C-alpha cells in the first residue's frame, strides 16, 4: 500500500462516521414523528395512530440498533487513530463527549426499553413519556456532538497551556465553549436535516403503499404527517442553512470561498447556481447570479466576500471537493423543498393518489435527505481542512504517534467488510418490514393499552 497513516486514518474516520451517520438522523427524525403519532393516539383515541406508532417503532428499532452498534466505534477512534489530537483537546472536547454519554445516551437507551418492550407493561401515559424521552435523548446527543464538532470549527472558551509536544487546550469558560460562535446555527441545521431524514422515510414508505394499493388508511395518514414534517423541516433547513452560511462567512471565510470557488475577493460576489471549478485558471465555469453571494453572506449586494487568495495556499481547504459537496447539498436541499411542497399541495388538493409519477418521486425522495446530510457533513469537515481544530492544530499533527500504516489498513479492511455486511442486512430487513407492513392486530390495542381513556367519536362510529 502506498498510502500513509494520515490518509488511511482520514479515510477510516470519514468512512466510519459517514456510515454511522446514515442512522442517527433517521432515529432523530423518526423519534419526532413517533412522539407526534403517539401523542395524537392519546389525544384522539383513534387506533390508526396506535397502528402507525407501532409500525414506525419497529422501523425505529432497526435504525437505532445499527446506529448504536456503529456509534461506539466513533468514540474509540479519537483515541486509537488521533491520540495526539486527544491529548491536545481532551480537556475541552472530552467533556462534551462525556456529557453526551451522561445526558443523552443513558436517557435514550433507558427509555428505549420501555418504548420497544413496554407497550403492555406500563400505562399509555408512561409509554408516551418514554417515547418523548427517547426522542429527547436523541436530540440531546445531537446537541453535544454538534457542540464538540463546532468547537473544532470555531474554537472558543479555551486557552493554550504549555509548549510544543506538551501544549494543550484547556477550558477557560465552559459556556463559551458550548455556545461557541457556530454551535447554534450548526445545531439547528443538523437537527432539521435529521427531521428531513425521518420524515422522508415515512413519506417514501407511505407513497409506496399507496402505489401498491396496500394499507391505504395507514398510508394516507402517515403520508399526511410525513409530508407536513418534511415540508416544514425542508423550509427550516433552507433558513438554517442560510444562517449557517452567514456564520461561515464570518468565522471561516476560507471555507466559504472554497464552497463557492471564489479565488479573488470581490464585492458584488456572484453565487454559483451550477458549474464546476477550473482550478488551473482559478475560476468557476457555469451559471451564477451576480451579487447574490455578497447578499447571502452579508445581507448586502456590495459587501466584498473574501477570496481564497487572501489566505496562504497551505491554509486552503481542497477547493474542488468542497465546491462539489456544498453545491450538491444545496441542490438536494432545493429538490427536497420542491418535492415536499408538490406532495403537500397535491395531497391537500386530494389528487395525490392519482398522480402516480409524483408518488414514485416521493418513494425515491428518501434518498435526498440521506445524501444531503452526508454531503453537508463532507462539506463541513473537508472545508475545515487543513485544520483538525480550526486555526489551532493541523490535521497531520493530531495523528497517533505509535500507530503504523499496516494496522490501519487491517482495521480499515475489517470495518469495510463489517459495514458492507451490516448495510446489506439492514436494507434486507428494512425492506422485509416494509413488505410486511403494519399489523392488523395493532388496530385493536390489547392488554393495558385497551383501557379507553374516553370514548372518541371515531371509535363510537365503529
Amino acid at each position: 500500500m502506498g498510502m500513509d497513516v494520515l490518509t488511511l486514518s482520514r479515510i477510516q474516520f470519514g468512512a466510519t462516521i459517514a456510515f454511522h451517520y446514515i442512522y442517527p438522523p433517521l432515529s432523530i427524525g423518526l423519534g419526532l414523528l413517533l412522539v407526534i403519532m403517539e401523542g395524537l393516539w392519546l389525544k384522539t383515541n383513534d387506533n390508526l395512530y396506535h397502528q402507525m406508532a407501532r409500525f414506525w417503532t419497529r422501523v425505529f428499532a432497526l435504525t437505532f440498533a445499527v446506529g448504536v452498534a456503529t456509534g461506539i466505534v466513533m468514540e474509540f477512534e479519537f483515541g486509537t487513530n488521533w491520540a495526539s489530537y486527544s491529548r491536545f483537546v481532551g480537556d475541552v472536547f472530552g467533556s462534551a463527549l462525556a456529557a453526551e454519554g451522561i445526558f443523552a445516551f443513558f436517557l435514550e437507551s433507558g427509555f428505549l426499553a420501555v418504548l420497544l418492550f413496554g407497550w403492555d407493561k406500563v400505562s399509555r401515559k408512561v409509554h408516551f413519556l418514554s417515547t418523548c424521552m427517547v426522542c429527547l435523548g436523541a436530540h440531546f446527543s445531537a446537541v453535544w456532538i454538534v457542540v464538540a464538532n463546532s468547537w473544532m470549527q470555531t474554537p472558543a472558551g479555551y486557552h493554550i497551556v504549555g509548549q510544543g509536544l506538551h501544549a494543550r487546550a484547556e477550558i477557560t469558560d465552559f459556556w463559551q465553549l458550548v455556545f461557541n460562535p457556530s454551535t447554534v446555527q450548526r445545531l439547528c441545521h443538523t437537527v432539521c436535516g435529521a427531521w428531513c431524514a425521518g420524515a422522508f422515510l415515512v413519506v417514501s414508505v407511505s407513497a409506496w403503499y399507496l402505489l401498491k394499493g396496500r394499507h391505504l388508511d395507514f398510508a394516507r395518514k402517515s403520508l399526511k404527517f410525513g409530508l407536513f414534517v418534511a415540508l416544514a423541516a425542508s423550509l427550516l433547513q433552507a433558513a438554517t442553512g442560510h444562517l449557517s452560511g452567514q456564520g461561515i462567512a464570518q468565522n471561516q471565510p476560507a471555507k466559504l470561498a472554497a464552497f463557492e470557488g471564489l479565488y479573488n475577493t470581490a464585492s458584488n460576489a456572484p453565487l454559483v447556481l451550477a458549474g464546476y471549478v477550473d482550478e488551473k485558471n482559478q475560476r468557476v465555469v457555469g451559471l451564477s447570479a451576480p451579487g447574490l453571494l455578497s447578499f447571502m453572506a452579508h445581507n448586502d449586494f456590495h459587501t466584498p466576500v473574501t477570496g481564497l487568495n487572501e489566505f496562504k495556499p497551505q491554509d486552503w481547504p481542497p477547493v474542488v471537493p468542497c465546491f462539489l459537496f456544498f453545491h450538491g447539498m444545496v441542490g438536494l436541499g432545493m429538490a427536497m423543498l420542491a418535492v415536499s411542497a408538490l406532495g403537500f399541495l397535491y395531497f391537500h388538493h386530494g389528487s395525490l393518489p392519482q398522480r402516480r409519477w409524483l408518488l414514485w418521486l416521493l418513494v425515491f425522495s428518501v434518498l435526498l435527505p440521506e445524501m444531503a446530510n452526508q454531503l453537508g457533513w463532507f462539506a463541513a469537515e473537508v472545508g475545515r481542512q487543513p485544520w483538525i481544530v480550526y486555526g489551532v492544530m493541523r490535521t497531520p499533527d493530531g495523528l497517533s504517534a505509535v500507530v503504523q500504516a499496516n494496522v490501519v489498513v487491517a482495521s480499515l479492511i475489517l470495518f469495510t467488510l463489517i459495514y458492507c455486511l451490516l448495510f446489506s442486512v439492514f436494507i434486507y430487513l428494512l425492506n422485509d418490514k416494509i413488505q410486511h407492513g403494519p399489523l392488523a392486530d395493532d388496530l385493536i390495542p390489547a392488554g393495558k393499552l385497551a383501557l379507553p381513556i374516553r370514548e372518541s367519536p371515531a371509535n363510537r362510529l365503529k
Partner: protein
Amino acid sequence: MHLDLNSIWFILVGVLFTGYAVLDGFDLGVGALHLFANRDEERRLLINSIGPVWDGNEVWLVTGGGALFAAFPNVYATVFSGFYLALMLLLAALIFRAVAIEFRSKQPMRWWRQMWDVSFSVGSITAALLIGVALGNIAWGVPVDDRGEFAGSFLGLLAPYPLLVGITTLALFMMHGAIYGVMKTEGRLHDKLRVWTMRCIIFFVICAVTLTMATLLYVPHMAARLRAHPWLFSVALANMLAIANIPREFHHGRDRLAFLSSCAAIITLMALFSLNMFPDILYCPEHPENSLTIYNAASSPQTLHIMLIIAAIGVPAVIAYTVCIYWIFRGKVKLDRISY
C-alpha cells in the same frame, strides 16, 4: 482524609467501569452461554431476558470512555492508540453482538437464526476476553516511553498473565450471566441454567484462585502495594466472602441474593484492582517514572471541576431511571409478539 479532584475523578471513572462490569457483565455472560441452549425457544428466552437492558448497560462503557477522555486524556490517548488492534477487535465483537440481538428474530430461517446466534455468542465471548486482557495488561504494567506513548507491541499484550485475567473475566461474566438467567427464567431452561451456574462457579473459583496466586507471585508491584497498605486486605477479604457467599445463597435457592453476591464480588474485585493501582493509572514497570498517574495524565482542575458538576446533575438522574427500567422489566421473562 482529603480527596482532591483528581482522586475523585479516579473514583468516578472507576465507578463507571465497575458499573459496566456489573451490568454488561451479566449480558455478556448470557451471550457466552447462549449456544449451550439448543432450542430456539430457549435461545429466545435468553436473548429476551437481556433484551430491554443490554443497550443501556453498554452505555456505561461509552460514558466511562468519555469520562476517561475528559478527565485523563493522556491515559485515554495512550491506551487507545497503544491497544489499537485489540480495541478494533473489541469493537467488531461489540458490533456483531449488538446487531445479532436485533437481527436474529427478524427472520424464521434456521440458518439465519444460527448465524446470528453464533455471532451473538462469539461476539460476547470475544468482548469479555478482550476486556479482561486489557485490564490484565494494565495490572501487569504497560511499557510507556518518556513522551507518555505506548512502547510495546500487539503480541506483547498477549502475555500469559493478561490472558489469565481475560479467561477469569470470561468465567466471572459467565457465572454472573448464568445466575441472572436463573433469576429471569422458569421451567426447563431454569433447571438447565442451575446446572450451568454450578459449573460456572467452579470454573470461576479455579480461575480466581490461580489468578490470585499468579498476581502475588509474578506481579511484584501489586503484591508490594498490598503489603504497604495492609487495610487493602479488608477489600480482598470482602471479595472472598462475596465469592464464597454465591454458592451458599444459590444452594439455598435464594437466586436474587446469589446475584447480588455476584455483583458484590465484581465490585470488590474492581475496587481491589483500582485501589491497588492508585495513584497510577498506567504503571510502567521498566521505567516507573514514565507511569501515567492521576496527576500527570489529568485534565486541568477547572475541567475536572466542571465535569464534577455535570456528573452531579447527570448521575443521580441516570441511577433513578435505570432503577425504574429494571423495576418495569422485573420478574420472569415471557415471550410475546414484540419479543426478539
